[in-house]
C-alpha cells in the first residue's frame, strides 16, 4: 500500500509501523459461503428512521418459581423488552396486605435476561453426567425423545416411565410435570408419585389426628391469640404467603411470640420475644415433656378431651387395644417406666427443664394460643411424630376450633381455588412416594406396599418393572435437591439403569448435567399461568406472558405439543388449546364454583384476585367444635384421634406408634454414631435463594454468601476461625465451604443453607456447599418422606 494516505495522518498519534501492519494483515475479503453478514441486521422496514417510541406497556406477572410468596410483579415493557420491574403498590391493609416482592424478586430481570440461559436444545455427547453436549434442532430433539420413548415403552411397558417431582415452575394451571403425565396417560400410562419433598410427613400424619390436612385457619386469627409458638417455622425467610405479615400484626397487638428452632432464624430475630434453641430431631421429646407438665399439673382441657378426642386416657380408647396404650399412660411412663418429664427431655433436647415447664404452662393457660408448625422439623427421620405431637398439644389444651387457637399439623387452607389442566387417567394406576424414585430405578421390582407403593392390584406384589425413562422438567431434584448426591450420581451415571433422561431447564443446573436430551425452557415471563401461594393462601395472580421466548427456548407445553403430535395424540393432548386458551378455560372452570373469581378480562386488568379477610375469616374445625352432633371429624371415630387405631393396626408400634411419641432417631444426638460424627447437621431456606433457584445469581450471592453456621464453642474445640474454609464430612460425602461462627445456632449442630448447586471436584468433594452431599436416602417410616435434617457429620479445617 502506498503511503500517501498515511501521510495525511498525524504520525505522533498513529504509529506508521502499526498502520502498515494492520493494513496488510488481511489481504482479501474474509467471508464465509460468500455471505459477509449474519443477515440479522437488516434495513428498517418503513421509511420512518427515527424509532417511534411505542408506549410503555405494564403487565402483571407472577414469579411462579417455587417460592411461598408468589408476589405480584409488574413488568414494564418497551418494544418487547422488559426494562423495569415494580411490585404491588396498593394500600397495605390488615384484610388485604400488599404482596411486595422480596430481595430475590428484584433480581427477576437478571433471571430472565441472564446470559447463561440455555439457548438451544442439546444432546449429550460424552458420558452421562459429564456435561458434554452438542446443539441440535427442536425437530431432532423431539424425534429422539419420541423414538426412545416408544422403544422403552415397547420393551419395558408404560410403568417404566416417570416424571420426576419438580417445582421450578410452580404455576397452578399448566405445570410441566402434570402435562407430561397427561401425555404419558394418553399413550399407555406411567408410574406416578405421591407426596412432596416439602411436606410428606405432615400431609401423611396430620390426617391420622384430624382426618384431613386442611387444618389451617385464616391468618387474621393470630391477632386473637395470646401466644404464638412458631415451632421450626421461619416465614420471614421462606415467605409462606403473607404469614410473616400477620405474625408481625399479632406482635403489634401484644401477642407473645416464641420461636423454637435449632437456629435463631431471621424470624426469631425479627419477630420473637423468645428463642428456644433445640437439638434437631428431638422436637417430639420436648412435646412429650410439655404434655407431661400439662397432664400432671392438670392444665389440660378435660371437657374438651373427653368430648372431642379419642385416646387421651384409658377411659377413652378404641376397642381392641390392650391396656396401657393411651397418651396418658405413655407420658406418665406407666408401661415403660419412663415418665416423660422435662428433666428426661432436657437430656435429649438440650432445652432446660425449667424452660419446657414454663412454656407448657404458658401455652396451656393462655388461651387461646397458636402452635404453628413449620415444615422443617417434619423433614426428619421421624417427622411424623413432630406433626402428631403438635396436633395433640393443640387438642389437649382445647385450642382447636376456636378463634385465636390453631389446630397445628399441615395447616393447609385456601380461600382461592384454581383449576389445573386435568392430568387425565393413568392406565397404569401406580404411584410411589416421590422421595423413593432412586429406589424405583435400582430395585423397582422389589418395591411393594411396605415401600409406600400405592395402587397395586391384588395379584400384584411389587412394581412390574424398574424405572427406565425419566423426565425431569423444571426441577433440580434429579440430584441437587434429592438426598445423597454421590449415591444419586452413581445411579444416574449408570446408563444401563435409566435409558432415557429428558431435562428441561433454564440454566445448566447440576440436574441438567445428567440429561441425555436437554431442552431450553422459557421463564415465567415468557409463558402463561396462574400463581398461588403456599398455604394459608388468599390470592391468585395472573402470570402473563410478557415477552416472547428468548433464544430458541420454549415452554414445556409448547414442546410437549410437538411431542404429542409425533406420538399421534396431539388433538387429545391439547384439545385444541394453547396455553392462553387453557388459562381462559381454567378461569371459567373456577368461576363455576367461585362466582367471585374474576373473568379473564378482569383478571388481566387487575392482575390479581385477592380475597379480603373481612367477612371471610375461617377457623379450622369451628363447626366440629361448636356443633359436634352434626359435624364429625373425618377420622374413623369421627373425633380427634390422639390414639389412631388405623396406625395401631399397621402393627409397627416401634416406628409407627398409634400415639405421638419421641422416637430416638438414627443419626440423632443419641445415636452411637456420634462418636465418629459428633455434630448434627441441618439445612434451611436461605433468603438469597428459592430452593436451588437463583443460586447462580451473583448479585444475590453478595447479599447472602453461601456459608455454614457453626457455634463458637464447636469451632473453638476444632481450632476453626470465622471465615475459614472447612470440610464437612460423613460416610456419604464431603463438602468444602466457608464457615461463619455464630451463637445463632445451638452448640452441637451446624447448619448449611439448602439449595446450593452441587459442584463436585474430580475427587467428588463438593466445593459449593450443597447440604445434600451429606443427607441420607433413608425414608421416614410412615410417609416415606425425606429426612433432610437428620444427619451426623464431623467438621475440620481444610
Amino acid at each position, binding site marked *: *500500500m502506498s503511503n500517501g494516505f498515511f501521510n495525511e*495522518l498525524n504520525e505522533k498519534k*498513529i504509529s506508521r509501523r502499526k498502520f502498515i501492519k494492520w493494513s496488510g*494483515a488481511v489481504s482479501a475479503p*474474509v467471508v464465509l459461503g460468500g455471505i459477509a*453478514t449474519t443477515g440479522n441486521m437488516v434495513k428498517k422496514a418503513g421509511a420512518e428512521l427515527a424509532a417511534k417510541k411505542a408506549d410503555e406497556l405494564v403487565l402483571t406477572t407472577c414469579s411462579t418459581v417455587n417460592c411461598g410468596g408468589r408476589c405480584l410483579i409488574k413488568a414494564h415493557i418497551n418494544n*418487547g423488552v422488559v426494562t423495569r420491574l415494580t411490585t404491588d403498590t396498593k394500600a397495605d391493609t390488615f384484610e388485604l396486605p400488599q404482596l411486595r416482592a422480596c430481595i430475590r424478586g428484584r433480581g427477576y430481570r437478571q433471571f430472565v435476561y441472564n446470559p447463561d440461559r440455555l439457548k438451544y436444545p442439546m444432546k449429550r455427547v460424552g458420558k452421562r453426567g459429564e456435561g458434554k453436549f452438542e446443539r441440535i434442532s427442536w425437530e431432532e430433539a423431539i424425534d429422539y425423545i419420541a423414538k426412545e420413548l416408544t422403544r422403552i415403552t415397547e420393551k419395558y411397558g408404560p410403568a417404566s416411565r416417570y416424571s420426576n417431582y419438580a417445582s421450578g415452575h410452580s404455576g397452578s394451571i399448566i405445570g410441566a410435570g402434570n402435562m407430561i403425565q397427561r401425555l404419558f396417560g394418553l399413550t399407555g400410562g406411567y408410574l406416578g408419585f405421591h407426596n412432596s419433598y416439602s411436606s410428606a410427613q405432615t400431609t401423611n400424619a396430620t390426617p391420622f389426628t384430624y382426618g384431613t390436612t386442611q387444618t389451617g385457619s385464616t391468618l387474621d386469627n393470630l391477632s386473637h391469640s395470646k401466644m404464638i409458638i412458631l415451632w421450626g417455622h421461619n416465614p420471614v425467610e421462606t415467605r409462606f404467603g403473607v404469614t410473616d405479615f400477620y405474625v408481625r400484626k399479632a406482635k403489634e397487638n401484644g401477642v407473645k411470640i416464641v420461636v423454637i428452632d435449632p437456629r435463631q432464624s431471621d424470624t426469631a430475630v425479627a419477630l420473637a420475644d423468645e428463642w428456644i434453641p433445640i437439638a434437631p430431631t428431638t422436637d417430639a421429646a420436648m412435646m412429650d415433656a410439655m404434655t407431661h407438665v400439662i397432664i400432671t399439673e392438670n392444665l389440660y382441657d378435660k371437657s374438651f378431651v373427653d368430648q372431642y378426642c379419642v385416646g387421651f386416657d384409658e377411659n377413652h380408647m378404641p376397642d381392641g387395644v390392650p391396656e396401657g396404650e393411651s397418651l396418658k399412660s405413655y407420658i406418665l411412663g406407666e408401661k415403660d417406666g419412663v415418665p416423660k418429664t422435662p428433666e428426661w427431655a432436657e437430656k435429649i433436647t438440650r432445652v432446660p427443664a425449667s424452660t419446657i415447664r414454663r412454656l407448657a404452662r404458658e401455652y396451656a393457660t393462655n388461651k387461646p394460643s397458636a402452635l404453628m408448625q413449620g415444615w422443617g422439623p417434619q423433614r426428619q427421620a421421624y417427622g411424623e411424630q413432630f406433626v402428631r405431637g403438635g396436633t395433640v398439644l393443640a387438642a389437649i389444651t382445647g385450642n382447636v376450633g376456636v378463634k385465636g387457637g390453631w389446630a397445628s399439623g399441615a395447616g393447609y387452607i385456601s380461600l382461592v381455588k384454581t383449576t389445573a389442566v386435568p392430568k387425565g387417567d393413568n392406565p397404569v394406576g401406580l404411584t410411589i412416594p416421590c422421595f423413593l424414585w432412586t429406589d424405583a430405578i435400582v430395585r423397582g421390582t422389589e418395591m411393594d406396599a411396605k415401600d409406600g407403593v400405592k395402587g397395586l392390584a391384588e395379584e400384584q406384589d411389587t412394581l412390574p418393572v424398574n424405572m427406565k425413562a425419566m423426565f425431569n422438567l423444571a426441577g433440580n431434584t434429579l440430584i441437587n435437591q434429592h438426598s445423597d448426591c454421590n449415591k444419586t450420581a452413581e445411579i444416574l451415571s449408570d446408563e444401563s439403569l435409566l435409558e432415557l433422561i429428558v431435562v428441561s431447564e433454564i440454566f445448566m443446573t447440576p440436574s441438567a448435567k445428567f440429561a441425555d436430551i436437554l431442552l431450553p425452557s422459557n421463564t415465567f415471563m415468557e409463558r402463561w399461568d396462574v400463581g398461588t401461594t403456599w398455604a394459608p393462601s388468599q390470592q391468585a395472580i395472573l402470570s402473563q406472558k410478557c415477552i416472547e421466548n428468548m433464544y430458541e427456548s420454549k415452554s414445556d407445553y409448547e414442546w410437549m405439543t410437538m411431542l404429542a403430535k409425533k406420538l399421534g395424540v396431539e388433538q387429545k393432548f391439547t384439545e385444541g388449546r394453547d396455553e392462553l386458551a387453557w388459562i381462559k378455560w381454567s378461569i371459567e372452570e373456577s368461576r363455576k364454583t367461585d362466582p367471585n373469581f374474576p373473568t379473564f378480562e378482569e383478571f388481566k386488568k387487575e392482575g390479581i384476585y385477592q380475597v379480603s379477610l373481612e367477612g371471610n375469616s375461617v377457623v379450622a374445625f369451628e363447626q366440629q367444635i361448636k356443633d359436634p352432633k352434626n359435624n364429625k371429624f373425618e377420622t374413623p371415630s369421627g373425633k380427634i384421634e390422639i390414639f389412631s387405631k388405623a396406625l395401631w393396626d399397621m402393627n409397627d408400634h416401634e416406628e409407627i406408634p398409634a400415639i405421638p411419641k419421641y422416637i430416638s432417631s438414627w443419626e440423632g444426638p443419641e445415636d452411637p454414631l456420634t462418636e465418629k460424627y459428633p455434630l448434627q447437621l441441618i439445612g434451611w431456606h436461605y433468603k438469597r435463594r428459592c430452593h436451588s433457584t437463583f443460586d447462580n445469581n451473583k448479585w444475590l450471592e453478595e447479599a447472602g454468601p453461601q456459608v455454614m453456621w457453626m457455634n463458637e464453642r464447636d469451632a473453638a474445640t476444632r481450632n476453626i476461625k470465622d471465615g475459614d474454609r472447612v470440610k464437612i464430612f460423613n460416610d456419604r460425602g464431603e463438602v468444602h465451604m466457608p464457615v461463619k461462627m455464630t451463637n445463632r445456632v445451638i452448640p452441637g449442630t451446624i447448619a448449611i443453607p439448602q439449595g446450593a448447586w452441587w459442584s463436585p471436584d474430580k475427587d467428588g468433594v463438593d466445593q459449593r456447599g450443597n447440604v445434600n452431599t451429606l443427607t441420607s436416602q433413608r425414608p421416614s417410616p410412615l410417609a416415606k418422606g425425606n429426612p433432610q435434617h437428620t444427619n451426623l457429620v464431623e467438621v475440620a479445617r481444610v
Partner: protein
Amino acid sequence: MIQAGLMGADKIEWMNARKYMYQLLIVMFSTPMSQESYSLIKDNVQTNGFPEEISDGDFLKSFFQEEESFAIQKAREDYFRLFVGPDSLPCPPWESVYRGKDRALFDYPTFEVRDLYSSFGLEMKKQEGQHDEADDHLIYELEFMSILIDKVLDADSPAEQTAALLGQKKMLDEHLKKWIPDLAQDILTNASSLYFQGSANILNSFIQFDSELVNELL
C-alpha cells in the same frame, strides 16, 4: 482529513483493509470453527502480519501449526464454552452484560446501539413469536462497523462519508472501546485454544487502533 468529494485509491484500499479486519473478527466470533473458516483464515490472513507487540500473530501462527482436525476441534469446543453454553458463560459476548449493573442482557447499551443502528436505517431482524435478539451482541456491533465502512466507500457526498465515519466513531468510542478490553481479558483468561487467545488479542488491539485511526480521519 478526508478530501472532499473523492477518495484516492490508497484510501479505498485502506478502507477495504479495515473492512476485511472486521470481516475476519466476525468470522472468528460468529460461528464455531469449521473446515471452511479454518481454510479461509489460513489462506487470507498473514499470521505474521500483526503488530509484534501484541504477539497475536504468534498465537495464530502456532495455531495453524497444530494438527488440523485437532486444532479445529479445540477451537470449536472453546467457542461453545466461552460464548454459547450450555454451561455458565465466562465471556458473555454482550455489551450490556459488561456495562450494565445486573450483568444481564437488555440493559442501556442495547438501547443505545439500537438507536445508533436506527439512525442509519438499520435494525435487528424480527421473528414472529421470538424475542428480539439483543442488539449489542459483539457480532452485531462489528457488523455495524463493516456496513458503515461500506457506506463510506459507497458514499455519494462528503457529508454522507463524514456521517458514516461519525457513526463508526460513535460505535468505537462509546461502545466497543468501553467493553472490548474487559471481554478480551476474560477470553484470554478462559480460552484454552491458541485460536481464541490470538483472536482476543487481535480484537482488542484492532479496536483500539481503529478508534485512534477513525478519530484522526475526522
